[in-house]
């Protein structure tokens, strides 16, 4: 193997390792989603097909009651789009990192991007230790493990739905895994301001259905963080009295 291929393989493995500790959260959330699909009225083969092709837990769960009540196709797709709107923000944030790649490769990376894999990638990319030419290899490693874990646990949930207790609150593991991801990022003032604003807006906007509140909250948080970032140096130059 060429040295370049070896380097890329090493980055892929590093990505696979980076997501390992978060995988219990992905597994629990996948399992609970799989069970919910079958309990929501889908037969086993359809539920498996949906898990493999849609690969978006919150959109699948939002669509279930609409499918069960026989809502028109466009309503279900519109609900899916609304629930997935946050991915547009993620996609815009990832664009500069992968702009050099071929379109087919960018489409593949986009397909495998989730809340978990996006967050891990952004954090690692901003640490500055990831060689730019190997970004996609590292991200692919993260995505591969996340996809395998999610699909394995979702399909387990689908096949064994009637044996899996739904009242243990397993899905809370997913929330905890997100807490573990966000914790280390809450160290700078703009991040804390943005996170706080985003949390408050998300709480106030929760009556808005289909995770649209989440989209609004994320935008508000990003604006607040940017303002906090910009005002910080302005205040300090005034304090030091420089012209």
């Amino acid at each position, binding site marked *: 193997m060429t040295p370049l291929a070896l380097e890329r393989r090493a980055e892929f493995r590093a990505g696979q390792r980076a997501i390992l500790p978060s995988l219990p959260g992905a597994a629990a959330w996948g399992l609970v989603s799989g069970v919910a699909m079958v309990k929501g009225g889908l037969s086993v083969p359809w539920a498996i097909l949906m898990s493999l092709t849609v690969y978006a837990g919150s959109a699948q769960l939002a669509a279930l009651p609409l499918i069960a009540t026989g809502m028109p196709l466009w309503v279900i797709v519109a609900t899916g789009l609304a629930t997935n709107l946050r991915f547009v923000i993620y996609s815009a944030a990832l664009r500069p990192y992968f702009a050099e790649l071929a379109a087919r490769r960018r489409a593949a990376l986009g*397909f495998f991007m989730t809340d978990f894999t996006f967050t891990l990638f952004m954090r690692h990319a901003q640490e500055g230790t990831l060689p730019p030419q190997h970004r996609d290899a590292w991200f692919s490693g993260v995505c591969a493990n996340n996809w395998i874990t999610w699909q394995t646990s979702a399909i387990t949930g689908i096949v064994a739905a009637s044996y899996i207790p739904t009242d243990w609150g397993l899905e809370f593991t997913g929330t905890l895994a997100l807490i573990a991801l966000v914790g280390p990022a809450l160290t700078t003032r703009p991040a804390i301001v943005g996170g706080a604003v985003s949390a408050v807006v998300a709480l106030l906007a929760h009556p808005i259905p289909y995770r649209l509140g989440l989209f609004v909250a*994320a935008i508000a948080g990003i604006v607040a963080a940017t303002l906090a970032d910009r005002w910080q140096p302005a205040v300090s130059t005034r304090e030091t009295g420089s012209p």
Partner: protein
Amino acid sequence: MNDPVAGIALAAVIVGLALSTFVTRTSFLLAGGRLRLNHRIETALRFAPVCTLMAIIVPDVLLHGQGSIDFSPLNPRLIGGVASALWLCWSRGILGCLATGMIAYSLSRVLL
């Protein structure tokens, strides 16, 4: 759902949902240079992970059940979330954070 008409309808729903995910996830990635935000906005997006995660986590923890905000100290999700956050302040270990949070959450569901 064994009736063929329902099967075709369900297939259409799955294709539609898969497209809704694919289109949103690849939107800016695939548009490449054609659809491009200005540089200041792209720089601001470095705060996207923190902001979206907080917007997912905080309602998950505080809005359990009927959708009303539950700040009560007896809310098991709040107890679990705080326990996991305290663990993170002490150690960076993710597995320990998950274990601490789940133990605190489960215990408070059983005991409170």
